């Protein structure tokens, strides 16, 4: 498994590089890459999570071994709750996971096991996974290296975009062409790292209570 532990110092340098590149590739691209550099408040996550996850997060990072131990703990918990978990495999942007099924004698029992397994996630992996995905964000350099390939993929599904496109360009395009949200899915699946958004940067969560 490839690991990309985030080095904030490198990101600061990357910001300077991105600033220079902005002259070439456009201001929007620079803004997008800089957005990837926002820092996730891991101390705050550690303060508000379960004891198991807090212990892992106490040093401000998640090692590959710690991440794997959290996935294993989640799987064991799901199994202990009475579900049948599948094998652990790699998917998405360097993540590990498994699917699982629940078989129950009736609806009440099914819902009880569901609730227990869903609690397993919150107890063992949810916050560790958030930090892990943050650590696995591509650096500005990695994004720039991948950008032409992603652009080619996007053009192959009918999206008119050039090699130096920024995420903001794509966001604007998708917002103006609703059908593009489905069209770009093959590219999102092929380049999950490129489309993995910094959780520290996410500000547009919608109102969950909105009807």
């Amino acid at each position: 498994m490839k690991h990309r532990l985030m080095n904030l110092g490198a990101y600061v340098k990357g910001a300077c590089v991105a600033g220079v590149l902005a002259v070439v590739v456009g201001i929007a691209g620079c803004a997008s890459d800089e957005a990837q550099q926002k820092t996730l408040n891991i101390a705050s996550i550690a303060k508000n999570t379960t004891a198991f996850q807090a212990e892992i997060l106490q040093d401000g990072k998640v090692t590959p071994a710690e991440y794997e131990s959290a996935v294993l703990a989640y799987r064991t918990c799901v199994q202990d709750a009475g579900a049948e978990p599948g094998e652990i495999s790699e998917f998405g942007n360097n993540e590990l996971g498994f699917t699982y099924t629940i078989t129950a004698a009736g609806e009440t029992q099914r819902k009880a096991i569901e609730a227990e397994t869903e609690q397993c996630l919150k107890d063992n992996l949810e916050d560790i996974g958030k930090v892990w995905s943050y650590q696995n964000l591509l650096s500005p350099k990695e994004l720039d290296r991948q950008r032409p390939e992603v652009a080619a993929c996007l053009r192959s599904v009918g999206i008119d975009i050039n090699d130096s496109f920024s995420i903001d360009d794509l966001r604007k395009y998708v917002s103006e062409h609703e059908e593009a949200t489905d069209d770009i899915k093959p590219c999102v699946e092929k380049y999950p790292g490129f489309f993995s958004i910094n959780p520290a940067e996410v500000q547009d969560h919608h109102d969950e209570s909105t009807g």
Partner: protein
Amino acid sequence: MTGTQGVQMKNSASTKKIVTRVAATGSGLALCAALVTIPQAANANGYGEAWSDGLGGRTTINVIGSSNYVEWVDVGHGHSAEPWLNYCGRQTKSWGISPDGMNQTAYSYWASDCTPVSFFGATGHYKYFMSGSNVWAQAYHDGAWRSGVPGVTIWR
């Protein structure tokens, strides 16, 4: 808040035609008018959708199988009013009743990262379901299972 619509279901792996009905329901006391489910035209594999959370949120179910044997269920979730919207921490599940009356739920992978566009999660069953019963689906992101539970009625 339920609705049904008769649809013709044709399995791509065989020419055997089976009939299913699409049912859709919302759940939770917080449901408002915008969550009224609208049965959609079904595709060959048994499809349904239900309005979900705000900003045009919508959860879809696509049952893949033959007759009353369900191989897997693709569950999708997105927001038509905001095509580019970050979804962090994602999972889907689907559930139904087998011929012997047992309940079964299948979960997709848990994805920890954030993605900017609508997402899908495959839930594998590989089981027979009770003819005439519904298979339901739900999507999770950003800390909550979303209202709007689409369903497809399985027929032998």
